């Protein structure tokens, strides 16, 4: 299994500001994934981040809006640029173990005012 930690647990920010969400894994992992979940909805894959390469974004998500860094095999950061109320949601980081079972961090609940 993989244990994932996220910081902060929750954040409230003003429209137009940027914020960073950090994710740390308890072991080295090849891929880290970021998901967005709006209230009472399902999880949507935003992007896949591998160490040393640019993140791959899913349709509807861009690196200008959601830049992701992956500096090493245990860490990733998601930034939300120019935050808007429509970005208010829970952001999860995720990764897989050697069996390809996927695990999720506790989530970061973001509210944009």
């Amino acid at each position, binding site marked *: *299994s993989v244990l994932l930690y996220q910081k902060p647990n929750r954040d409230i920010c003003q429209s137009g500001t940027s914020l960073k969400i950090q994710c740390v894994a308890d072991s080295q992992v090849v891929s880290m*994934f970021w998901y967005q979940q709006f209230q009472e*909805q*399902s*999880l*949507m*894959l935003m992007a*896949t981040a591998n160490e040393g390469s640019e993140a*791959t974004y899913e349709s509807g998500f861009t690196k200008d809006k959601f830049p992701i860094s992956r500096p090493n095999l245990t860490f990733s950061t998601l930034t939300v640029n120019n935050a808007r109320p429509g970005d208010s949601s*829970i952001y*999860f980081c*995720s990764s897989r173990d050697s*069996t*390809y*079972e*996927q*695990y*999720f961090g*506790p*989530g970061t*609940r973001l509210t944009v005012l």
Partner: protein
Amino acid sequence: GDQVEQSPSALSLHEGTGSALRCNFTTTMRAVQWFQQNSRGSLINLFYLASGTKENGRLKSTFNSKESYSTLHIRDAQLEDSGTYFCAAATNYGSSGNKLIFGIGTLLSVKP
């Protein structure tokens, strides 16, 4: 595109009873996972199946990759089983980049 169709979207059970959740896949999937999302929003891994059936306590899950569906059976439901249950299917290696795609979720409410 790849799709995961989950049903029902909501389910109400009395304590001690049981039911089944189902996910249909519109394309061949490599594996399926089932999660419970609790009231704090945390995702709890319930099952990971590449094929066949697994059982854990009062929960049992089956994945039929040939017929493209998976089920999650809950028996003897307890109040603490309440929450949202998600199935998520892993696309095949090399197709769509091996991603985990979620169903819409089933909101389970267990009543006394």
